[in-house]
Every structure is written in C-alpha cells, then in structure tokens.
C-alpha cells in the first residue's frame, strides 16, 4: 500500500542550511542577474568614490588621519579627541566592537581636510573607559609640504602601562 512514488516528497533541507546543487541549477539565471547587478553596483560605487576623491584633491594640500590599534585592550580606548593646531576637529566615542575591529587590521578614516603647508601640530587625546578613566594627550609636530598627506596614528600599549602609546607615521603625497 505504500508503494506509490511521491515525487513531491521534496527532500527536507534544514532552514539553517542553504543551497542544494539542484536548486542552484534551477536558479542560474537569477544568480547571473545578481552577479551582474552586484558588479554594476560596485562600478557605480567606485565611480562615486573616484569623483569624491577628485573633488577632495582639488585642494592642493590636504591631510587625512587614520586611526588603528595594535593589540589594545578595549578599556584603554573609550573616547578620542583630535586637535589640529590647538583647534578641536574630531571627537569620537569608540564602541567595544569598533575597538575590536581596529585591533584586527582595520583603520578608521577619522579626519580629512585641506591644510596649509608649513609646520602643524596634531594632538590626540585618549580617554579610557569608565573602569579606566586615564586620560592621555600626545602631540605630533609635522612638516606639511605640498600635496595630499596621510597621517596614520597607531595606538598601542606594548609595555602594559595605564595609558597607551601613540605612534605617528606621516606619508607625504599619498592620496587618501
């Protein structure tokens, strides 16, 4: 009595799992569409970013600051303030997630603006978390030449101190 073939007994696929090869074969057109549309989206995004970069580089002299960390405990990085020539330009609160992201190689583009040539000071103030209320300020003096400079600020704590150390790396003429 149970010999009737049940083609509609489509095999169960756990909803937490994905595709079957059969399903992929059925929807190859859709995948192609998705693939082409994704490429077109990337092309538009790239063109927009290029336009924005060209606009930014119409300024003959610019400074872009990136922040990254090197094995920095999250408690040492709660809030960061940046002043250029004693003028506050950035105040940023870090989430624990962002602090973790920065430890994994990511760099936050935190500031980008035109700047005159000559000598400038960049001061970074770091406030620790509520359990570590240490506040530290570090000033970097830089000679700004013509072009688009990048300043990479690495926050690290190699000696396990109460406040982190800052390492500045200025790259002259590098496009952001």
């Amino acid at each position, binding site marked *: 009595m149970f010999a009737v073939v049940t*083609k509609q007994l489509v095999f169960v696929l756990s909803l937490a799992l994905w595709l079957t090869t059969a399903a992929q074969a059925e929807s190859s057109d859709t995948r192609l569409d998705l693939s082409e549309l994704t490429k077109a989206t990337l092309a*538009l995004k790239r063109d927009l970013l290029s336009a924005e970069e060209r606009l930014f580089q119409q300024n003959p002299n610019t400074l872009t600051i*990136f922040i990254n960390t090197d094995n920095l405990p999250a408690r040492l990085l709660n809030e960061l303030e940046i002043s250029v020539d004693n003028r506050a330009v950035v105040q940023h609160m870090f989430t624990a997630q962002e602090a973790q992201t*920065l430890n994994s190689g990511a760099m936050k583009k935190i500031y980008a603006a035109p700047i005159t040539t000559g000598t400038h000071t960049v001061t970074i103030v770091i406030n620790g978390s509520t359990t570590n209320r240490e506040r530290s300020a570090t000033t970097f003096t830089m000679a700004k030449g013509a072009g688009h400079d990048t300043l990479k600020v690495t926050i690290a704590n190699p000696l396990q101190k109460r406040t982190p150390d800052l390492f500045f790396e200025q790259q002259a003429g590098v496009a952001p």
Partner: protein
Amino acid sequence: MKSRHSLLIGTAFGALLPLLTVNAAEVDYSNTTTTTLGHALHLAADGDDLAAVATLLMADKKGSAEPESDASRFYIAETLRSRGVMDEASRYYLAVANDAGAKQHLRDVAWLTYAKIRHEQGDHAGALVALQNIKKGLSDTQKGDFAMIKAHALLAAGKPQEAVDAVPGNLKHGSQWALYQRYNLGGLLLGEQNNKFGAAILHTLSEIDSRKNPELAALKDQANLALGYSLLKISKASKARSYLQQVRINNLLSNMALLGMGWSYAIEQNHEKALVYWLELEGRPLKSTYQYEASLAIPYAFGQARAFNQSINYYKTALNRFEGDAAAMNAAKNALGSTGLAALINGNSSDEFAWINGWQPAASTPETVFLPLFMDSPNFQQALKSYRTLLALNNYVASIKGEIVAYETRSNSTAPELHQQHQQLTDNVDRAIQAQLATLQQLAIDILTSYQNQLGQYLQQARFGMAQIIEQATQNRGGKQ
C-alpha cells in the same frame, strides 16, 4: 514498506553547500599597514562590504594599494565570492595565486579557494589542477579543505576507495566548509554508490560538537537523518533510532525524524510505539510533507494493531484532510497569483533567518497556511534567498542616490553621468526583483499543484486502505460470530 523507505532515503541525501561567507581565518589581516586596505576593512566591519571592495578596486586601478596589493586583491576576491560574483572572484584569486612576488601562504590560499570555486561549480578536474599548484603554506584547517576537494575529485573520477582514503580521520581542525563537503561525500557514497564507508563518514558528523553553532547543528541533524533512513532501508530499526532520535525536535527536520522513528517501530511490528511518533507528527500545527505521510501511516498502524475502528476513523480524518487541503490549495493559488506572496515576503524581517521563524505562526490566510510546504522545497528556498538578496541590493542602490546628491552639494555641481548610471542600475534591479517575484509565485503555484496531484493519490490510497480495514473488521466480526 521497503519501497517507502527507499523513497525517503533519497530525501535524506541532498547535497548541501554552506552559506558563503568570507572566512576571516583564511588570511590574517591584523598586520595590515596600508591605509587603503585598513580603511576598507573598517568599512566592511561597519557592514558596507561593497564600499570596501569599491575602495580597493579604485586603489587597485591606480596601483595605490601597494605594498599590500595582493592582500587587497585577496580581500576583493573573498568578498566577491561571498556575494556570488564567481567569475570576478576567480580572476582576483588567480591574480594573487600567479603573482610570484606574493607571500607563499597567500598564494597557496588563493589556489585553494580558487579550487573550491571550481569544485562548487562541478569542475573537479579544474579543482585538482589548482590544488597541484599549492606548495606548503596551508594551515591544518586549510589542509582539511584541500583533502575534501581532492576526495570529491577522486570520487568524480570513479575512484571511490581512493576518495574514502583521502578523507581526513580527524575532524578537529576541519573548517565548516570541509564538514559540508564531508556530508556531501558521505551522502554520495552511501546514497548513490551504496558504499558502506559513506555511513562511516556520515557517522563522524553525527558526533560533532554543535552546541554553539546552529549551522553545524543543522548539518548534524541532516547526517543523523541520512544515517537513520539508510538503516531503515535495510531494516536495522534499532540502530536507525539511535541516529533519528538525535535530531533536534524543534525544527522542520524533526518532522522527517518523527516519521522515521515511527517506521523503525513499525518494522519491529511495534505499532503502538510507532503511533506515538506519528500521532505527534500528525498533530503538529504546521503543514508538512511528512505530516501527510503520517496521516496515512497512522490508520495503517491502527489496522496492523487490529484497532479497526480507530483505523477507520483516522482514515476518515486523512480523507478529510486531503480533500480539504486540496480544495484550500486552490484558494491559496489564487491569492499567490495576486499580491499575496509579495506581501508575505516583504512584510518580514530583513534578518537572514528570522523571517523564517516569523512566518510560521502567521498561518491565517490560504497562502500562509501552506507556506511550510513551500519551505520544504529547496528550489523555493533558493529563489526566496535570491529575491531577498535583490531587495537588499535595491536598498543599497537607493542609498547611493543620497550619496550622489551629497556629492553634488559639496562639489556645487551636477553629476549627470552618475545619475544616469544610478537610474539604469535602479531600473535593472527593479526589473530583476519583479522577475524574481514572478518566479517565486510560479514556483509556489507549481508546488501546490504538485501537492494537489499527490493528495489525489493519497486519497485513493486512503480509500483503498479504509476499504481493506472495513473488510478485515467485517471478517473479524464474522469470525467471532
């Protein structure tokens, strides 16, 4: 009864692919030094992987990502692969793999991942060629991936024993991807080739620790089902139960497990125990292929237990269910043909899996009642996944419009080329969404039509079964007299 098992064994061996994700463990980016790659990693961590790739593509075009251009290209490849853009991903993997100046580990991982793409696209020979380029830079986990690609290629080349020998005995260092491939290989060996080593391979999956990983838990369920049904096929009921009873009770796979548990007892002529599982399955609120099976199995079991009145009553219940559902499916098809399906899909969370759970309790309209039947179909699941990906892409493209306007404000100029590009993309995405919705609607209607045909056959079986039971009951009464 055996023929029923052989049908179900087929259902237990579906080839599975993991959700494609960028595997952060493949390459360690923590020592990134260039701001371009670092910035892209930050964008990606913020959830905008397309902006990350666009940033790297721009830098790659200008050559400004040096000295980490290979790491950047690898990252582009990984993201494109996770987005299903396989042709471009392959191009970037090969660029890294063939770069003599790149680090050996990166080149080896690029070859390995390129081999995975070839493997997933069914080009086993191409996958093997890619593997042959790998020198010595793989981690233990990556070696596990390597072994599984090789094992599949050997099986495809008609060398099952060599394929079995290539499977690593130790699961400790295996990636999730390798575990899926292990499942697929075990399923192929056991299901198609009737090779006992397939069962041994699946057994290793039934023992994995999946407590902290829902995807692995689902894979383990799938392995237990496959093993359970393969044992039912050869009437090893007790051993089959040892696997089936490990399937988690709170997911849709458990319907198949309950049906199998019932059959395991039925094989042993323990129909009372079989009924425990089938009645639970039959009483579940959500529609299921296996629930229909249970509707037939229950009166069969009562009949075998000589409980003729109950058997007849359950046959009547089954007849009502089959007739009622077949009729209700007409109403559902009408609703699906209008705007019902779009409302159903679009009204749910954007979260990758939450929408599935969100749907289940909403069984109030004809189309929602039968939604679980659609979700039993891998084709429908895949089409729905594509539809939702298109919707997400549509939202992303819409957000770029605001960025173009902001750019125009900053530049105090217009950007007609960008607007034109954006409009064309918007139109294309919209067309793709509408086409995909139409595909989904047709799939849903086709599924219901198939079920209606199936229910028609079930009706005949139920009528025939009931007639037999009535005859047996009559003979029984006659005998007593």
